[in-house]
């Protein structure tokens, strides 16, 4: 009798955590991996205006790779992503180092730098669109100050427009990197630095040899976050340049949106988003692999 009464309770005890986690698990499987699979399927179909689930082979990928606009978008992502990540990391690190010098009003300055992160990219994009518009913003301001020949028309220049996206993106996200780095700096053991000082090392040397290498995990976290911000940079582009002039600032995300939703070529759009998924995977998978391996080594 005793056995019988305790058996269900025990099985419930075993079962309960799984039951609680199950809905989240199911939702994740369906809405992340399920839709990923669905999208992969669509990219091999002949879908146009609405999705159809037939098999068309790799024709959508062939069309994608033959498309000039796709290559502009891919190149823009490399350019924007590379510059955005590198500048954000460097700027964030320097801001953090300067803020770490025990200056007055540190809290206030930190808040000011971090604040852009609280804005949506749409707001950032719209504001910078006005600031950079040659007829409204910086160029006009400087010209009205008397410098008649001053020209700053990157926003409307096909060759330079992508760099305005970098400016706005960096403005928004470098404060966040600064916050991360600052936390990292504060976490480094003071005793090591004191010991180095006793040994006669100069401050720049200490930063170069001890502190910055110690921030490696911070850089990794920042890199992962910045990378995915860069790849999904859709709202910033839409608000700032609308992909223009022409399609000069198109990125894969806006490309995918245009073809899937406004041009009735869902198959081609799916192929483009598969390429984006591959790009993310190419960065995330080696990272996860190295992280997981490190943990195994520790145990």
């Amino acid at each position, binding site marked *: 009798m005793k056995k019988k009464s305790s058996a269900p309770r025990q099985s419930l005890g075993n079962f309960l955590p799984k039951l609680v986690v199950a809905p989240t698990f199911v939702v994740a499987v369906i809405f992340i991996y399920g839709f990923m699979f669905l999208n992969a399927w669509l990219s091999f179909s002949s879908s*146009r*205006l*609405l*999705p159809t689930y037939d098999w068309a082979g790799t*024709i959508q990928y062939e*069309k994608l790779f*033959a*498309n*000039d*606009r796709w290559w502009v978008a891919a190149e823009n992502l490399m350019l924007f992503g590379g510059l955005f990540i590198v500048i954000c990391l460097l700027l964030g690190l320097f801001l953090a180092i300067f803020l770490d010098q025990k200056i007055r009003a540190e809290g206030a300055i930190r808040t000011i730098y971090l604040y852009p992160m609280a804005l949506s990219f749409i707001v950032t994009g719209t504001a910078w*669109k006005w600031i950079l*518009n*040659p*007829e*409204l913003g910086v*160029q006009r301001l400087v010209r009205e100050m008397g410098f008649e020949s001053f020209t700053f*028309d990157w*926003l*409307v220049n*096909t060759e330079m427009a992508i760099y305005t996206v970098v400016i706005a993106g960096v403005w928004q996200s470098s404060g966040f990197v600064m916050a991360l780095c600052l936390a990292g700096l504060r976490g480094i053991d003071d005793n090591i630095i004191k010991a180095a000082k006793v040994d006669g090392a100069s401050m720049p040397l200490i930063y170069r040899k001890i502190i910055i290498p110690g921030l490696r995990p911070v850089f990794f976290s920042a890199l992962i976050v910045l990378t995915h911000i860069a790849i999904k940079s859709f709202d910033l582009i839409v608000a700032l*340049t*609308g992909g*223009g*002039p*022409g*399609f*000069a600032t198109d990125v894969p995300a806006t490309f995918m949106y*245009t*073809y899937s*939703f*406004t*041009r*009735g*070529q869902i198959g081609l759009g799916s192929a483009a988003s598969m390429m984006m998924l591959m790009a993310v995977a190419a960065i995330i998978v080696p990272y996860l692999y190295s992280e997981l391996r490190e943990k195994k080594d520790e145990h």
Partner: protein
Amino acid sequence: MKISKLFLSISLALGLTAGAQAAEIEVLHYWTSGGEAKSVAELKKMLEAKGHDWKDFAVAGGGGESAMTVLKTRVVSGNPPAAAQIKGPSIQEWGDEGVLANLSAVAQAEGWDDLLPGVVADVMKYDGKYVAVPVNVHRVNWMWVNPEVFKKAGANVPTTWKEFFVAADKIKAAGMTAVAHGGQPWQDATMFESVVLGVAGAEFYKQAFVELDPEALNSPTMIDALKTFHKIKNYTDAGSPGRDWNLATAMVINGEAGMQFMGDWAKGEFTAAGKVPGKDYICTAAPGTSGDFTFNIDSFVMFNLEDKEQRKGQNDLASTILSVPFQEVFNLNKGSIPARLNMSMDKFDDCAKLSAKDFVKTAKANTLVPSMAHGMSTFSSTQGAIYDTVTEFYNSDSISAEEAAEKLVKAVAAAKY
């Protein structure tokens, strides 16, 4: 039983069933700018007078791109609105998907075949049956002129492209912007198609943009048109990339710019600003196109609905849209002309009267052509391909007209299959 009840209650809770919104006629449209919104309000009033509830489903964005995106998600999820603003060959694309309602009953009862010009009726039919109702006919190849600016610059309103550049030079020399332009791909394409029509004529236009003939797309004539088109850029201001069309119109209204190439929906902006045609502004066909007419017909497509009440509402909506009072009041507000034939044009202004006269005239002369830039001549994929090439060429100084013509052929071919 239990499971189906559970699903029912879940879907009810999420508001997914169409039954929850019965007797409401939901109409998706993208008329959100000043003059346009006024026109929609009229339709709403008339439908409500017939005892139906109008549920407004407005999605902003001049070209209707965002509206179409929203529409697709609604149709895919099995919950389409009663009616949506779709036009041109896209109606055929939607017809292929098998989601459109059949309006034959109303059409026969009211004799639509006699009310509408043949060109218009053909666009509204899928598989020989009416699935859509036309609201208006827009003329796209207009040029809007501020006579005050021309007077100050000592220039004459141009009727050919040669005269255009003479006038534009004078305005530029007088320190004003000659052409108010909004640098969005659809506006670039709107200007481009007027240039092609003016430079090469209706026959060539049809070859290039309706038949998509590769030989026409990459011909000396097309290269000529591309060169003329790119030259216009010198007469626009630096702030034009990304500008909305109505802001460009405002520049002409305020006398900051001399001309704008835009369809007659721009007239709504002039009217809303209290301007009088012929006095405060001049409407004239784009240079070289006075004998041609590029049309853009707005229409409402009806979707298949289960609910009987809603279906009745749909039919009432369709007959309201084609009714004389609505066609009159709507087009007076919108700046376009009625799609319905044999209507009195007394209340319309001179621009609309000219437009209506030219519409009938060009239909007879076979110089009435569908607008490429506004999705009347091709599917959206081909239109997009042309947009890309045109807008890239216009915005870049490093692509030659010859290269652009070659790209045009390639891009159109790629979009076809």
